[in-house]
């Protein structure tokens, strides 16, 4: 397995190279000159040429890419055109942190609610409640995030006046009990984005847990446990539960990907200063260096995440041996 992991890791820089070159060429292929904006209203061709050279925008695409690559290898992703004076790294990492916090909380919520719902459905299989739970969750999964947010905002912010319409206020607010005791409570800006990001995820998790729980209940060792007279609570707590949870780990990767895609729209629609909104603004205003850094960094995260998920399979199910069946 170590050989397999090393081989995949060696492969990573090559993927990043291709991805960055593709992004670089596509971005340069587009219309509009970012320097026209950066140079402002009064353009002196001489100064323009000087700025062009400073930003590494002169010469052929290959030359430009070479310069970008050698700088990026040293951790320098250039300077943002949109917010001048800030390096791309300075801008990206704080925003990434906000998105990461939101995404991880949404992930926890998806599993914290999806697993019990799936177990409940499996326990009640044969009654009308089981298909009702599953089909409701699958219906929620079908609603696109861009459709979901306006009604949520209307209901919670305009009609009920419970939550703010958007923005970001950190994770916790301090609530002073009697002016003395500090109690941290979740910031009200969190509820809507988390709702929108997690609502589509329950269905997949709950359905998987339901199916595996039903399968496990039919296994021989459950029948043995029942035959030797173990109480039903011990059977479900000791035998059914752990064995039906194992496969759930395998969908963490999928769940995270869908949360990241959803976060893109949630951040744009709800004005959260995260990485999704930043990428959107960068694409709209052709902030080349930001776009490049974003695709390269997210690709790296995607590849590493997939590798982690694959490695986690082998810990969960020792029958799977990486590399041996790399064909699938």
């Amino acid at each position: 397995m170590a050989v397999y992991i090393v081989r995949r890791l060696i492969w990573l820089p090559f993927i990043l190279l291709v991805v960055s070159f593709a992004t670089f060429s596509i971005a340069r292929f587009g219309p509009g000159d970012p320097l026209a904006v950066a140079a402002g209203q009064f353009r002196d061709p001489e100064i323009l040429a000087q700025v062009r050279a400073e930003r590494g925008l002169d010469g052929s695409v290959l030359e430009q890419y070479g310069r970008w690559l050698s700088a990026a290898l040293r951790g320098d992703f250039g300077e943002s055109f949109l917010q001048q004076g800030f390096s791309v790294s300075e801008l990206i990492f704080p925003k990434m942190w906000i998105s990461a916090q939101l995404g991880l909380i949404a992930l926890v919520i998806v599993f914290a609610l999806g697993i019990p719902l799936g177990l409940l459905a499996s326990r009640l299989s044969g009654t009308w409640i089981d298909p009702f739970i599953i089909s409701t969750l699958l219906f929620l999964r079908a609603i696109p995030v861009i459709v979901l947010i306006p009604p949520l905002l209307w209901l919670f912010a305009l009609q009920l006046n419970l939550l703010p319409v958007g923005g970001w206020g950190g994770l916790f607010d301090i609530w002073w009990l009697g002016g003395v005791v500090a109690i941290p409570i979740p910031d009200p800006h969190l509820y809507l984005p988390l709702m929108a990001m997690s609502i589509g995820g329950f269905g997949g998790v709950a359905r998987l847990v339901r199916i595996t729980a039903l399968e496990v209940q039919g296994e021989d060792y459950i029948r043995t446990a029942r035959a030797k007279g173990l109480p039903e609570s011990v059977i479900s707590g000791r035998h059914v539960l752990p064995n039906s949870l194992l496969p759930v780990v395998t969908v963490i990767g999928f769940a995270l990907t869908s949360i990241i895609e959803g976060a893109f729209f949630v951040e744009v629609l709800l004005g959260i200063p995260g990485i999704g909104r930043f990428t959107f603004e960068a694409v709209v205003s052709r902030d080349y260096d930001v776009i490049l850094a974003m695709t390269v960094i997210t690709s790296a995260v995607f590849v590493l995440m997939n590798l982690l998920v694959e490695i986690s399979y082998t810990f969960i199910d020792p029958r799977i041996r990486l590399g041996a069946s790399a064909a699938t």
Partner: protein
Amino acid sequence: MTSAVAETPAAPQGDAAPGLSGVSPGAMLWRRLRRKRLALVSMVVIAIVYGAGILAPVLAPYSYAEQNLERTLEGPSSDYWLGTDRLGRDMLSRTLYSARTTLILTVAVVLSGSVVLGVGLGLLSGYRGGWVDGAIMRVGDIFGSVPGLPMLILINATTRPRVDELARWVEEHTILSNELTTTGGASYFTVAVALSLFAWVGMARVIRAQVLQLRERDFVLAAQATGATGARVIGRHLLPNIAFLIILSVSAGLGAIAGSEIVLTWFGVGVQPPAASFGQMIFAGSGARTFQAHPHLLLVPAVVVTALMFAFNLLGDALNDAMRGQ
């Protein structure tokens, strides 16, 4: 679509597959699927939306671009069954033509991306093996590891002006006068190409894995031993045996393709006005205040899109279950 499921496997398997005589995997799949009520309901929903798309020019009471600025933002009435939008365009006609957009783009992407590129490269990769296989799969790895959505937005945003230039050139040099640029037709092309670039990977991997197994089966070895050419082995022996897999992957991917178009158009980099798309309709209706004042702007496209996505999901699940023999 339903007829495709029934017909494709009916292709004669010939003398080469005595062990598989009787029911082909596709026919078996279809028999199991027919017993599922939810799957049938989903197919009906999809058929309604696609049928509306095909018949949009016949069914639509108004043109999708016709504005009536004296009657903007109206709720449903006898003149306008689903109300009018901000420019006084009939929402019903816009919905029908949006369904047409969904239809055109999903079919185009499925054909070019999933079927031609995906099946073609999958077959090539699995059958040839060696460095061809390695190269195709590594390219697939790269497409699979790129974050899709930002890339799609970037490609559409940067290449559209070039495609528009191309469309104008085509108009000048052919009998087309201005059909491509004024109807937003050129943007369909950009979106279809961009989505196809990402649509083939999943299909190619599935097909390749299946072909790797089939390649070792007796009937394929026998065909090769009797001197059948590569094209004949692929066309007569491999394709009929992977037809059901193609149907399965296509139906699993349809929802994602339709959703991607809607999302890209919502961002303003997909299908361009005046062409109608659910993405534009949803965008025009989003915003909490807009929803409060004119809920029909969002509700009309939202109901159709959600029903369609739900149907795609359920159908995909049902097909998956039928595949695993349940």
